[in-house]
């Protein structure tokens, strides 16, 4: 072990400086700005809790669309995406190496294209005329007679955004869980079989999950972050912020709408803090579920 006094700080310094400047300071600033009125030109004016009060009482768009959308979206893409990731990882762990690697690669690949490439692909699939793949297939199946203009139809925007987000959600957390599953000591399964564990369901709940809690927690945190980061999908697919009639408006989009379109930076900061609090709350639940008790 290295115990010299200055050395550790020398090694840490570059990371800490950048971490502080670009992660800590912006977060602290967001909290500070959220108590002010700030239009990016004049000095911020302290207004106390006004922004938060307005957010929760006056902002009808936030209360009517943004908040319900965000909760629906994050519940589906977070927990459901997470369970799906675990289920797929577990299924893959039951296969031999080569097919497992190939299938894992295919499942993981959408998460690397999130962003630009993704938008292009899904726009072509959900093109609003007859030559869009989704419209064509549904017409052939006799489900619809007229092509659906997917990206302007408020009924479909949110489900499409959720599907695309789920499609891209098999990321780092999924890989971590797969690796964790493969790492569980096989003797545990044998012992469990002798002790009377009868089916796979019991095996997963009594052996697998308890022995890979740390990976489960890492996967959960990654799923939550992924769910909130994916907030731009709606804007990218429809090409407009706000999305048509706020159908897929999430908190991330609301922040940009207020911050960069209306220059109400103080108010946008209050929404940011709300979003960070929401992420923290989700992660806290995950921690309670999977934290090692010692």
């Amino acid at each position, binding site marked *: 072990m290295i115990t010299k006094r200055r050395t550790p700080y020398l090694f840490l310094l570059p990371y800490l400086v950048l971490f502080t400047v670009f992660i800590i300071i912006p977060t602290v600033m967001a909290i500070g700005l959220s108590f002010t009125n700030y239009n990016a030109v004049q000095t911020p004016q302290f207004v106390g809790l006004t922004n938060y009060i307005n957010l929760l009482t006056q902002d009808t768009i936030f209360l009517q669309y943004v908040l319900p959308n965000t909760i629906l979206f994050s519940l589906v893409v977070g927990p459901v995406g997470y369970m799906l990731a675990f289920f797929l990882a577990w299924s893959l762990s039951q296969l031999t190496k080569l097919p497992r690697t190939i299938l894992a690669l295919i499942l993981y690949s959408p998460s690397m*294209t999130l962003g*630009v490439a993704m938008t292009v692909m899904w726009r072509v699939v959900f093109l609003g005329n007859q030559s869009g793949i989704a419209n064509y297939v549904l017409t052939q199946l006799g489900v619809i007679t007229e092509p659906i203009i997917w990206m302007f139809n408020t009924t479909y925007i949110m489900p499409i955004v959720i599907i695309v987000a789920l499609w891209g959600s098999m990321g780092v957390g999924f890989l971590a869980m797969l690796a964790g599953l493969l790492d569980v000591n096989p003797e545990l399964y044998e012992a469990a079989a002798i002790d009377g564990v009868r089916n796979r369901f019991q095996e997963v709940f009594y052996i697998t999950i308890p022995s890979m809690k740390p990976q489960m927690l890492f996967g959960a945190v990654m799923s939550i972050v992924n769910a909130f980061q994916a907030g731009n999908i709606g804007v990218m697919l429809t090409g407009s912020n706000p999305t048509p009639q706020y159908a897929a408006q999430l908190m991330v989009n609301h922040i940009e709408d207020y911050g960069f379109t209306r220059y109400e930076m103080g108010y946008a900061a209050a929404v940011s803090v709300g979003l960070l609090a929401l992420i923290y709350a989700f992660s806290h639940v995950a921690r309670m579920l999977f934290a090692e008790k010692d």
Partner: protein
Amino acid sequence: MAAIGGTRVNPKKFHKNQIPFYLYLIPIAAFMGLPILYIINHAFKPMDELFAFPPKFFVSHPSLINFQNLFQAAGTSSIPLSRYIFNSLLVTVAVVFLSVLISTMAAFALSKMHFKFKNTIFEINNLALMFVATAVTIPRYLTISSVGILDTYWAHILPQIAMPVCLFLIKQFVDGVPNSLIEAAQLEGAGSFKVYRKIILPLIKPAIATGAILVFQNVWNNIETSSLFTSSEGVRTLAFYMNTLSTAGTVQGQGMAAAAALIMFIPNLLLFVVMQSSVMNTMAHSGLK
């Protein structure tokens, strides 16, 4: 081998009891892979096939016309495509290199050295795993503007270097390096920097590869640093240009956008395929307690 239902984790051989898993994994993988397969086909479709009705999934007469259009379209605007490619490569290589360098150094300190606030720093980094950059875009913009790097390459590079997930994964991996190796080297008179270079770095290659891939994906696909922190086209990246292209919406634009998407996607895929065993090796150490 005692195993329930005749199957077990990480089997060595194929067994008929594995068939049910294939029955649902293959359709799901097909659903996940189809859009990518489609875009590959779309990118190589000549004009008449892009227009074709009924739309066709597979290309029948592959052509490079979309790629040609892409390069020409870029050529007629003020900035050539090669400039965006150059910018993207410069920024990505710089961030990946610097990020891996400073994350491995910090991971070494956090894992193998004793000092005050060590656990606090690691805990704060763990909290920052939840950091969503888009949530604090505005203060980030203000920070970058007060550092004075708006509209330069640094605006892409500096904000993206510190990546909590990267530090976390590498630190967990360094934990696995035996202390006895480090102590032996110190007995022979090696200083901390020598231990870092000669012992830590060679032993944590899988974690370095994983960190590099994650950073690469983040930076290569990022459009926010271009759209928010720069204003001149000359310093913007390929991802940003591709995104403006895909919003054009014409049929010709569609073909070009597909070609562009492919150009963006291929480096991601290749890197991951080459390094996947390192990645899986690192992920086994990824537990968060």
